[in-house]
Structure formats: structure tokens, C-alpha cells
């Protein structure tokens, strides 16, 4: 079975919510819709206070090259446009919408029928994806349409759909594969045509055998799509590792997947692409896994963007006094929430409630030079060296040792027997070196 060659770790899967079917989560009372829930330049609001909006109405437009449109996830009245906290506690411009009823924009096809016929041309598909504000739903929230607008001179050979979901605990992509296999396959076909390539792979890790079986059976009808089962290993869901696992190609340092002829798209986003292109439905809701070892009812919810995390947490039967950390995303790469008032954004793949024992850090010891971090690093870096360079502010040394190639997967920190905060140091270093490189370019 295929997998990537360098490094990687095997954290416990803990897919507690794998059996929980996707439930529709009720609309919130007030939706907090952030203007920067994608990578790149924040969107510019096109509504004002007291404007009436319907579900799916455009409320903010992404004008810059790397930016995305934002649509209302609820129907109601715009209360105000003000700053509101994001995951880190920093405030970002947000549109507050007071919810009244649930009236949808008429152009959205709300029927359950599966639309198989793809009518649009490559350019029209990309424009539609852009219009509907689809971004990468794996967590990085890179605007999908930008990925498919290839730079001149570059040619794609493969489309890879990332259904790996290598993060422990998270099951949102798994549930989408099981419950919407036809839609995901049609979405793949749409993206394949947009990219104008002959081959599309869907990579699924072997811990989702039901999804592999189902997709393989259904994909028999599509001559260009192949489902690839992958050996379970973290971080297989990282773009470069997935390309290596499926095609055997290695993305060189500082290059993009397109440089080796690949474009990678998340399976949740592929479903969103299907809805955008075939059903004219903007991205205003997403599947969020709410889980944790002490959670009574681990669930997968279809949540409107802008719903407060506290509502999701309240619905899963959990004793909050035992919870030490609440994480947006998975345990390896997710961000710790500073407040449960934080709203769900396009990038919220899960909410993980970790109990106190599990979440507290162990005592940090000295580095014993065991090189476990070097073996675990999927990018072939030397985390012990980079963290020391970063700690001692030796930025030129960190740059020479390729700190900018770090994908922040956390394998080094996971495997360290001395519990050293390697990733934390690497993140500081990456940020600092990035600044230095940008200043140099000026």
C-alpha cells in the first residue's frame, strides 16, 4: 500500500465520531461572519447596517488575487460591522447578522436530486467556484479558484483529491465520503475538467475502509478517476506528502505542487465545489466534528458559518469542568481556542475538547540528541537544530537549515522524549525568517 517515504508518526486515531451521521445544526440567533476566514486579503463588505439578507446572499467580496467571497449563512438583518475575536483572541472585522426566519436566496437549488450533467466550460467552472467563495476546507482555507488558475507556462498532469484526514479525532471528511459519494465524485469530475487533466486520484487512508470500498465501487463509472488506498501515517494529508504518496514525485524546496504537475484539493471542498457548480449554492455551511474523549455524544454537524462554538459544545453532552483545552481543528495542527465565543469559520474542521490530563504539557527536559525528531520530520529537516537556532535567535543559520520548508505538522514535538516544545520554537523562527526574507526582497 502506498505512503510517503520520509518521516511521519502514528498518533492514536481516536476517530470517536466516525459512526455519527451528519446532523443539521440549527441556525444561531446571531451569526458572526468574519471577513478574513480564508488565506489572503480580507474580503470587503458589500452590505451595511440594517440591510436585510437572505441565506446565500453575497455579503463581502474578495477583490484581491488571493481572497474569497463571503456569503450570508443565515437570513436576517445586518446588526453591525465591528471587530470580533478569532481563534487566537485577536479581533478581526466581522459582520454581525441578527437571524430572522430561514429564507434562502431563490437561485440556490435546494432539491436533493443529484445533478450529474456538467454543462460549464473550464473557465466558467473556475469563475463559479470564485463567485461561490469556495476555499480549502481542510484547515488552511486557501481560495480554491486560485489553485486552479495555473500560472503561465505551468501544466497540470494530475488532480489529487485529499480525503486522507490524517488528523486524529476528525471525521468530517470521512462522513462526507460516506454520505455524499456521488457528489464528491461529480465534484472531482468538475475539477478534473476545470484543470483539463486526464487523471484524478482520490487518496483515502486505510482506516476508512468503508469509504474506500464505497468510492471504489462508485468510481467504476468514471473512467478518469481512481481511488487510492493509503497506508495510515501522519501527516499524509499534507499536500506535499500526499503527492509523494500517490505519484512518487517530490515537490522541491520552495516550490509548489504545480511545479511537479499536481493540484491537490480537499474532499470537503470538492463537495463544496459540486454544490457551488451544480446547485448554485455558495459556501456558507460546513461539516464540523465535535468530539473528545470525555464527550458524551461525539458528533458531526452541518453548521452554518458564524455559529458560536459555545452552541456546538453545549449540544454534545460534556462536563466542561474537566476540560483543559478546547482546540479548533485536530490535536496535531489545530489552534487552541481562547474563548468559546469564537465563531465557526470556513476553516473550522472540528472542535476538540481535551480533558485536563490529556491537555497539560509534560515537564520539559534537555535535548538528549536522540534524533527522533529528525527521523520523524516528513520534510527531512533537523528540528532539534532549528529549534536551537530559533531559541538563540540565529536566524541566518535557521534559514540555511531550511526552516521555511517546515509544514508545522508537529511530528517532531509529538515524538520528542524530552517533551521539548520544538514546533513552538520552529514557528517563531519561521515567522521571523519569513519577515527577514520579505524585507530583503524589498
Amino acid at each position, binding site marked *: 500500500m502506498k505512503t510517503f517515504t520520509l518521516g511521519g508518526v502514528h498518533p492514536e486515531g481516536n476517530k470517536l465520531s466516525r459512526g455519527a451521521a451528519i446532523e443539521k445544526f440549527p441556525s444561531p440567533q446571531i451569526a458572526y461572519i468574519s471577513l478574513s476566514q480564508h488565506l489572503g486579503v480580507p474580503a470587503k463588505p458589500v452590505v451595511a447596517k440594517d440591510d436585510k439578507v437572505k441565506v446565500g446572499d453575497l455579503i463581502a467580496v474578495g477583490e484581491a488575487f488571493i481572497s474569497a467571497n463571503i456569503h450570508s449563512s443565515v437570513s436576517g438583518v445586518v446588526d453591525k460591522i465591528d*471587530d470580533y475575536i478569532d481563534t487566537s*483572541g485577536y*479581533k478581526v472585522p466581522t459582520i454581525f447578522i441578527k437571524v430572522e426566519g430561514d429564507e434562502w436566496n431563490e437561485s440556490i437549488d435546494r432539491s436533493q436530486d443529484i445533478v450529474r450533467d456538467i454543462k460549464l466550460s473550464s473557465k466558467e467552472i473556475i469563475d463559479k467556484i470564485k463567485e461561490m467563495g469556495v476555499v480549502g476546507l481542510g484547515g488552511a482555507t486557501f481560495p480554491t479558484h486560485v489553485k486552479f488558475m495555473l500560472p503561465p507556462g505551468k501544466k497540470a498532469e494530475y488532480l489529487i483529491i485529499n480525503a486522507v484526514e490524517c488528523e486524529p479525532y476528525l471525521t468530517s471528511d470521512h462522513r462526507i465520503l460516506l454520505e455524499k459519494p456521488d457528489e464528491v465524485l461529480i465534484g472531482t469530475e468538475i475539477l478534473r475538467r476545470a484543470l483539463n487533466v486526464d487523471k484524478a486520484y482520490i487518496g483515502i487512508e486505510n482506516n476508512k475502509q468503508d469509504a474506500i470500498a464505497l468510492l471504489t465501487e462508485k468510481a467504476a463509472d468514471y473512467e478518469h478517476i481512481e481511488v487510492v488506498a493509503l497506508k495510515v501515517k501522519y501527516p499524509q494529508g499534507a499536500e506535499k506528502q500526499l503527492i509523494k504518496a500517490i505519484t512518487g514525485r517530490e515537490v522541491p524546496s520552495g516550490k509548489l505542487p504545480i511545479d511537479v504537475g499536481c493540484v491537490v484539493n480537499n474532499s470537503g471542498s470538492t463537495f463544496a465545489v459540486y454544490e457551488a457548480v451544480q446547485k448554485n449554492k455558495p459556501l456558507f455551511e460546513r461539516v464540523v466534528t465535535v468530539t473528545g474523549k470525555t464527550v458524551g455524544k461525539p458528533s458531526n454537524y452541518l453548521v452554518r458559518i458564524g455559529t458560536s462554538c459555545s452552541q456546538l459544545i453545549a449540544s454534545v453532552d460534556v462536563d466542561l469542568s474537566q476540560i483543559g483545552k478546547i482546540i479548533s481543528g485536530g490535536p496535531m495542527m489545530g489552534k487552541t481556542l*481562547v474563548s468559546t465565543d469564537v465563531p465557526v469559520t470556513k476553516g473550522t474542521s472540528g472542535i476538540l475538547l481535551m480533558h485536563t490530563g490529556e491537555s497539560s504539557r509534560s515537564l520539559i527536559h534537555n535535548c538528549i540528541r536522540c534524533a527522533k525528531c529528525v527521523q520523524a520530520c516528513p520534510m527531512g529537516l533537523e528540528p532539534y537544530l532549528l529549534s536551537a537556532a530559533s531559541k538563540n535567535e540565529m536566524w541566518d543559520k535557521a534559514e540555511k537549515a531550511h526552516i521555511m520548508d517546515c509544514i508545522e505538522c508537529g511530528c517532531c514535538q509529538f515524538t520528542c522524549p524530552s517533551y521539548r*516544545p520544538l514546533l513552538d520554537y520552529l*514557528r517563531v523562527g519561521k515567522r*521571523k525568517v519569513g519577515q527577514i526574507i520579505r524585507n530583503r526582497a524589498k
Partner: protein
Amino acid sequence: MNQILIISVVALTTIGVIAAIILYVAAKKFHVEEDERIGKVAELLPGANCGGCGYAGCKGLAEAIVKAGSLEGLKCPAGGNEVMEKIADTLGLVAEATAPQIAVVRCSGSRQAAPKKVDYDSIKSCAYANVVSAGESGCKYGCLGYGDCVKGCNFGAIHIDEETGLPVIDEDKCGGCGGCARNCPRGIIEVRDRGPKNRRVYVSCINAEKGAAAKKNCSAACIGCGKCVKVCPFEAITLDKNHAYIDFTKCKLCRKCVEECPTGAIHAVNFPPKKVEETTELSKTEIIVNK
């Protein structure tokens, strides 16, 4: 046995003599005439290599001074006027006296005024904490308290107070080189004039949020009400980005603003107490604040 001894001694002596000759010739041939004044000036400088002057270390400044042949625009902020006068005497130049400076911490968000809402458990570095979160109190402008400023000071003039969690500046040791200010990721520390008799008035907050939002996280925040701006007879106070700033070149130390401030964000330092019973100690910074 004897033979081995003799061979070693002779061989080593020969090598020593040859090496000495080479070194002597090299020293003569490659001799560089260094201005002896540079060494003298460098000796007068504090020797902490803080970089506050803009040169890489004290030797760098000494070289620049000797090369320029004047003290214009060159100054050791840590040493102050005293050191500059000594240098001027040595070189026969004229030192222009400038106002002595000191670092001030523009944050009043002590643990008491801005209580913790979450726990931060990662590496104890302000630079990193600033990247991952807005801080334990929720104020994204406030002091994080992990002591990056302490690491930036080469004079031991700053430490983090255990009780308040805020940095405290030792007035006797601080020369105003700005090492701490350069290390602070949030730009909280400002280098200001020490003021006459070491007295100064400053707004100890840089929160740019609206009053209500600032107050939510910290009871000592400047809420941008503008009362101080109105009461100031010298137009020394300006209001920008929801917080006030006192221009130390215009401030005449009347302290009307201190009395007016509803949150106590304006600190007046080193003034004798007006009335004993009204004297309150705001923090352990040994600062006497008159209300």
C-alpha cells in the same frame, strides 16, 4: 633515552625560533597604525555593547567619533551626558548636552487590573506568545510578561515584578538605550526624556480599541475619553487610536490630567506627595501616584 630527550629539545627549540622569526617579520610587515584615541574613547564608554547608539558595540561608536572628529549626532545613550563630556575632554571637542532619557512601560495591565482569562502554557517568550494569541488577559496591546525586554537589557535595569507581572525599570541603572523597547513585540516600552528632577507624566496604555472593549479586558486601560486632552493647559496631550499620548517636550508637569483620568492610566512619577492621606501606591514600581 638521552638521545630522544636531546632530539625533542633541539627540535622544539628550532621550531620555536623559526616561528618567532616568522611572527616578528609578519608583525612588522602587516603592522596597522590604529589611532590610539579609539582605545581611549572605547575605555570611557560603558562597555555593555548595547547598540543603543546605532553602532555595533562600544568600539564601533568610538571609531565613529574619532573618525568624524566631532560629537555631532553621536551619542552614547546609556552613558549619557557625563560620559560624553569625558570623551569631549579627552578629544578636545565640545559635547552638546541632551536631555537624559529613560524607558517607560506603557501598560498598566497588572494581574490585578487585567486578570487572566486563559492559561498560556507554551514557551515563555513574548515574541512567540504574541504570534499565537492575544494574551492571557485578552488585551492584544498589553504586556505579555514573559520578559523579552529583560533579555534585551544589558545593564540589568529591568525586571518583571512577580506580583503585577509587569516590567519594572530601575531608574538608577537605565540609560535609555532602548534595548528593551526593540525587543518588545508589542511596542509597549517607550524611551522618553527623564524630565526635570526625574519627574515625568505619561499615559501608561497603548490600547487602540474603543473604550468599552478596552475596559472589558483591563480596568486600568486608557479608554480614550479625552478628558485629559481638554484639561491640559499646554496642548501637550493628543488623542489617537482611542488612547492619549503626552508629548514630553510640551508637558509642564502640572498633573491636571492625572487627577482627571477616570481609570488611572496616566502615571506621574517621582513627585512629592501632595497630601499624605491621598497618596496611593498603584503598583510595586515604587512610583508614587497622586490622585
